[in-house]
């Protein structure tokens, strides 16, 4: 990473596309995604690592993008909600969320989907307890979580 004035060059891959970006060294990945790349599917609920709305996958691992700085992700592969579905076809996690009513206002949904996808990619047979463990950092105020657990279990069956 090299400095240009108060900016730095950041090379990352976002949803499979290589990007070379000029960013502020203190810009968060959340800001880079939403403001520089206009990928507004990644949401913000607190910008302090408390709510999980901004979860993206960095090299397959769910991370709070509001707490990630450019220096931490040089050369990484970032997956946002815009990169989850396959063309017009929903990913099994997205399809299960739709079928099980696991979203209402939808604001926590991108983060929920990505945390769920990371869990099921590693363990499609995750139990309800394992699902709770994996998603406990994602807050939702609408659903009461019940339908989300049902959806992730169903998605796991579809992915297994």
């Amino acid at each position, binding site marked *: 990473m090299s400095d240009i004035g108060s900016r730095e060059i950041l090379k990352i891959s976002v949803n499979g596309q290589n990007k070379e970006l000029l960013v502020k060294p203190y810009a968060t990945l959340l800001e880079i995604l*939403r403001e520089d790349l*206009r*990928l*507004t*599917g*990644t*949401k*913000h*609920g*607190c*910008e*302090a*690592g*408390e*709510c999980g*709305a901004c979860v993206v996958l960095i090299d397959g691992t769910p991370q709070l993008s509001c707490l990630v700085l450019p220096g931490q992700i040089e050369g990484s592969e970032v997956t*946002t*909600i*815009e990169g*989850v*579905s396959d063309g017009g076809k*929903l990913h099994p996690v*997205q399809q299960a*969320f*739709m*079928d*099980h*009513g696991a*979203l*209402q*206002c*939808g*604001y*926590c*949904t*991108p983060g929920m*989907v990505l945390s769920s996808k990371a869990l099921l990619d590693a363990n499609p047979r995750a139990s309800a307890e394992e*699902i*709770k463990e994996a*998603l*406990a*950092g*994602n*807050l*939702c*105020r*609408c*659903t*009461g*979580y*019940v*339908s*989300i*657990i049902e959806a992730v279990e169903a998605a796991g069956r579809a992915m297994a």
Partner: protein
Amino acid sequence: MTTVANDPNADLRVIGKSLPRVDAAGKLIGLTAYADDIELPGTLYCKLLRSHLPHARVLSVDTSAASAIKGVIAVITGEDIPIKYGIMPTSQDEHALEYEKVRFVGDPVAAVAAVDEETALAACRAIVVEYEPLETVESIEHALLPPSDEPIHDYAGPGNVHRIGALEFGEVDEGFANSSFIREDVFFYEGNTHLPMEQHSATATFVGDQLTLWSSTQDPHYVHRALARVFDMPMGHIRVVAAPHGGGFGGKADPFSHEMAVCKLAMVTGRPVKCTLTREEVFYVHRGRHPVLMWVRTGVSQDGKILAMHFRTALDGGAYGSYGPASMLYTGALQTTTYNIPAYRFEGVRVFTNKAPCGPKRGHGTPQPRFALELHMDKIAEAIGLDPVELRRRNYVKPYTRTINHLRITSCGIEEVTDLVVEASRYHERKKRLGHGMGFAVSSYMSGAGLPIYWNKLPHSECIIQVNRGGVTLYCGATDIGQGSDTVLATVAAEELGLWPTDIRIVSGDTGLTPVDLGSYSSRVTFMAGNAALQAAREMREILVSAVAEKMECSPKDVMVGDGKIGELSFEEAANLAQERHGVLTARGSYTPPREIGGKYKAAGVGPSPAYSYSAAVVDLDADPYSGEIQLNKVWIAHDIGRSINELAVKGQVEGGVYMGLSEAMMEGQLYRHGLHKQPSMLDYKSFTFFEMPEVETFLVETVDLEGPYGAKEAGQGPLLPVIPAVVSAVHDALGVWVDEVPITPDKVMRALDAKAKGREGRYGPKSFPQISYPPIVKVPPFDASSTAF
């Protein structure tokens, strides 16, 4: 989930099915543009400077240094927006930016528009405000004392009293005199906030005398009216668009400072201006659950029939009026919709304090008295040796009756919801053992407020359906805040037009494009906008059917509608045929609640609804007698939905209501110290995660309301209500102590256990209710039933 239907043979194609939301796909792929995702070319960014003092006179605001900062385009202060506003006609007490005095930590005094947020923030820091601090009023008791310097507001009163009232229905003294048992209790319900996942955001443009505001609002209609007032503009020059919404729960139902500020800054700069609140600011904007102190006295006969009830409430309103006059009355209005109370006295007061303003949160003014009333019923049952469920049953309201405070009860599944949760949970078969308990409670809520917030004779909801190029567009002012209102409207239109909900294009919550709807509050959308959509859809169906019948040379009643066909023609062919004959194809529907649903006395505007939902809950939990910790095991919830328009969406509303009730019963509180919010962050303000949420078993009862669309009633607010008292009741069942205050936290449980161990009453909660000079009681004459059936 189980649904108990009264008419399983009803011939409906899409109504009642468990179908995905019509807006699910966009939300799942990250394409739905919420308010902060809207980015217009050339946008400037706005930040508000907020008061750091809870109560102070503003002596001067110097913006010169801020204006000189490179990248700052405009700075405005209160004098630039001098006209006051407020959601209710009687509470026009807010300046967009205060310039005379500030009344809570977070009250805005100036706004900046700059090329980016960083610059706007730097400019806010450069604004110099000179304050003269005033006494901080922190509590209900404090607010009831004469102010040491000056009241928080220069209207209402005396002192810091905002609203006060006293009503009596029936002969209360006589009822108490005839009672064989009388009990008094005092309760406190701590305030809490909505905590929507989305932070409020608004963007405004002002182009050629036309003001447009995109905002995360639940009530674009009321915001539109407030803008017209504040900027003294014709209604026709304003357009308010409710952006796809990241959660409301009542917290985005007022017109807000940041909305006014971006509009004014757009006018001043000629550029789009956007303001997105930080999470900390969302805690200050608040308008959440009022802290309420309650005192209740009830007299019952030997067989447990309520003969008289006297209910007193005192609400901590925070710094502004907001929905307060209604909130105060709601703490006394719906006690009568579950229990037959033949004589009822209500005295209520709302006071101003130097805290973030309270307003409507899910259940608006009714969760607090419902918590008190249900525990009070438990205590009466215990005292007179009756089973708590049986005591309630002996007092349940009957369908198609009139309450003592003149509310019309129609369809009523209170017996059915009780049976379902009591049987499924095996409540009466539970084994008594220390540390394990079950609690039962019941409740009722409105399917929309019977009267609008301001007096007018417009319909409460209007819909237009347009058929064009073979497709259907439905226009309605209702706002989908996540509850599924777009899905309800699409499902109603699809049912009538023989289509699928995703075939219907919905344009909603846009005051420039859609006809009047009052917004998403008071659980009104399914009932009111649903009825308007039903009327419009039936009219459109008739237009299409008659065109097809004419072509087929048959009677319209022989033209079958369904599966994408109208008679022998596809929907598209039928639509084109009708359009060839009639030109533009539109159909209209509107809904106004019937007049006779409530009384005519002063304050009768709060409580009436065209239909009431009923909910019952049983909570099963373990409570540790050594640590006071509570582990929820399971919740059984039954809800009288009238009829589900979309069963999956109703289930979601019910489970979400249970969750929100549990979370505020057990951990949420908006707490202050010396006027400073103690935890304005999501880390410090605790709410339930996946870990705390227990298993929920949901039962829906379909009573098929005669006036609801296809018989539907509300689902968004009612199911929250019984959960809160059921938790506290279950803790009592487990440990034998009462915690008469929510949230019920381990420290409160331990204090009640300590008191019991020391031989005192095993209770934690407020010890007394303050002496309040309520006004003389207004005795309301009995309901005049001459013009209605009951």
